[in-house]
């Protein structure tokens, strides 16, 4: 390198600086107060924990947040709703049958004032049953009443409570059983895995519908039977996820390290592997809840749901189906709640999946 070239280089750089009128400070060309040690010491710590980061990502997902809000709202109403309406869920009020929704305040706007259009031979006629009822001006059925004169607001939330309960219990048992099955199968591998997986494959070949219907006609219909039926069909998916994760994690360094140190299988599975797959299983169960709710509603609709006078969203919808054309309002509210619940759980599960696995985002 010639002196000339160096001079020129310096000049051009200096010119560039001068052109931008950058003012150097007198200390600019002193070493910064950091030596090797300081740099080494400043090795960055992980900025945010994984869980926290996932929650932050979830918080950014408007759809998921909205869904969470709706789920909480529905759960709250399911808990409180039956208490505030002033009616019992199986209480049949004589003369209160087939009453259209009437809500304080809104009735002044001409909606939800208790009147409904009834098709007659001579054409459509507007009828308000509250006017005919003795003392009817003080009666309010927010969602109306059914053919037996039961308050639908109370029944809808009571039904929601039962539906949610069924789904939660079924999914919880599913998760525990499916997870254990999958983890054991994946951890031990070899022959154990082979046998366990053949069992799963054969069971997977039986349509859920058949398992559920057979079970229900064999056992007495009721809450435990339905939960059992839902549980029996749901665990397979869960076990597959758990097994796949186990297989993946088994070979990773931290598990291998614990293994060589002589950790017991139970300890390994619960302490080293479980924390790493719990997120995935959570997502999976979030997807299972709506499908359990749906299965329950489906059973109710084909006539093998929980027995009267208990109510679930499914049985209410199924009952009101018969008067769909005459009194569509009877079905509208439970259907909206059911749809909203399913949609919210699905969206929240989507959001959760994206938050836990950012790579899945935009998929």
């Amino acid at each position, binding site marked *: 390198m010639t002196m000339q070239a160096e001079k020129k280089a310096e000049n051009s750089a200096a010119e560039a600086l001068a052109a931008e009128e950058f003012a150097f*400070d007198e200390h600019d*060309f*002193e*070493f*910064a107060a950091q030596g090797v040690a300081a740099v080494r010491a400043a090795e960055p710590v992980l900025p945010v924990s994984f869980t926290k980061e996932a929650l932050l990502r979830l918080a950014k997902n408007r759809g998921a947040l909205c869904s969470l809000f709706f789920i909480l709202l529905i759960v709250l109403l399911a808990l409180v709703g039956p208490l505030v309406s002033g009616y019992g869920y199986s209480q049949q009020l004589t003369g209160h049958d087939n009453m259209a929704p009437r809500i304080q305040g809104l009735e002044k706007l001409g909606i939800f004032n208790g009147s409904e259009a009834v098709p007659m031979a001579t054409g459509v006629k507007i009828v308000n049953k509250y006017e005919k009822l003795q003392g009817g001006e003080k009666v309010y059925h927010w969602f109306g009443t059914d053919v037996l004169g039961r308050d639908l607001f109370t029944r809808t939330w009571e039904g929601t409570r039962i539906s949610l309960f069924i789904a939660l219990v079924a999914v919880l048992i599913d998760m525990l059983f499916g997870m254990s099955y999958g983890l054991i199968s994946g951890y031990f591998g070899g022959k154990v895995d082979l046998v366990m997986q053949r069992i799963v494959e054969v069971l997977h070949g039986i349509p859920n519908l058949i398992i559920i219907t057979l079970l229900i006609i064999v056992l007495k219909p009721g809450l435990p039977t339905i939960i059992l039926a839902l549980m029996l069909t749901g665990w397979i998916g869960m076990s597959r996820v758990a097994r796949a994760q186990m297989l993946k994690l088994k070979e990773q360094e931290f598990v291998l390290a614990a293994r060589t140190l002589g950790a017991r299988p139970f300890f390994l599975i619960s302490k080293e592997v479980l924390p790493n797959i719990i997120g995935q299983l959570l997502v999976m169960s979030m997807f299972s809840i709506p499908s359990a709710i749906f299965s329950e509603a489906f059973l109710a609709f084909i006539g093998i749901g929980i027995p009267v006078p208990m109510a679930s969203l499914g049985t209410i919808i199924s009952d009101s189906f018969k008067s769909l054309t005459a009194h569509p309002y009877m079905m509208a509210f439970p259907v909206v709640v059911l749809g909203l619940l399913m949609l919210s759980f699905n969206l929240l599960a989507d959001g959760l999946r994206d938050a836990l696995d950012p790579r899945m985002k935009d998929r």
Partner: protein
Amino acid sequence: MSDQKRADSAQNELFLAENALLSVRNLTVRFKTGYGVVGAVRGVDFDLKKGKTLAIVGESGSGKSVTVKALAGLLGENAAIESGSAVLRGPNGEKTDLFSLKRREMRRQINGRRIAMVFQDPMTSLDPTMPIGKQLMEGLRDHLHLGREKATEEAVRLLKLVEIPEAESRMRSYPHQLSGGMRQRVVIAMALSCNPEILICDEPTTALDVTIQSRILELIQDLQRKLGLSVIYITHDLGVVAKVADEIAVMYAGRIVERGLADEIFYDPRHPYTWGLLLAMPDVEMDSGELYTIPGNPPNMVGQTVGEPFAPRNEYALNIDFRREAPMFKLSETHYAATWLLHEKAPEVARPARFGRPPKRLN
């Protein structure tokens, strides 16, 4: 790029360095991400000469892959070329700015025919559901409009060119039937199928067995000589660079921090980051038992940054490094480095003693 920008760049005279096949000037690429705008590439300049090999070296996230993807028109939807030009010299001396081409023109005229790429992982670069012969013939038929027989002949010739045994029968193989090294040969044959002038190799050997790596490198070098190719290597492996490069550009945080002829970089490196990279390279003559690592992690380039991105990891950081990025200092016609240590007022620095010549400062 918007029409306005396209018109602007057409008005400015297209910059093409003398005796260069490709000149990139002031290339700036930004990504829009969920966390904000990321300045992935910030004002990159380099020239590629005919028949020569340029290696772009840097850690992951330094912007080296983005740079070449921009050249090949392969940036994703969330990336935008903010400014800059990449001028390619045509056979009759005409100049084409790659960034002024529409996507369609890019695919028709440039991709495969003038600039081809080889990617890191041959396991995933090939379509798993199509025989390799058919994939190889795609470019021949679409771009060169060869008939089926001609294309088959040419495909076999290409397979032989990359030294694949039993080329005729291999035509019907699916990618999963070939080993990693074989697949990378097929990938190279496909890249070369339409006689490009420039071959971009993005970490072409990283995913391969060590034993196969050097054979693939030799193959590329051999083809380069036979076909008169100009090659750009993207790599973090200085071992690869030492074998193949004529010129080297070191990238950090979206900028080229030092560039020069291979000898200049290896024997007279000027930027503390280059020192770090070289020290981190294992060496048979190394006396100390411990391998050097550059402390800290590459910076997160979200939003606006102040000062040198490398400063927090730099043992030789000056106060000004935290205030302002260093301009490019010219050391020779071919050697440039962007560090304040080259400024006339900078203190004397004892460079790590391992490089060829003693440290020398501009004055």
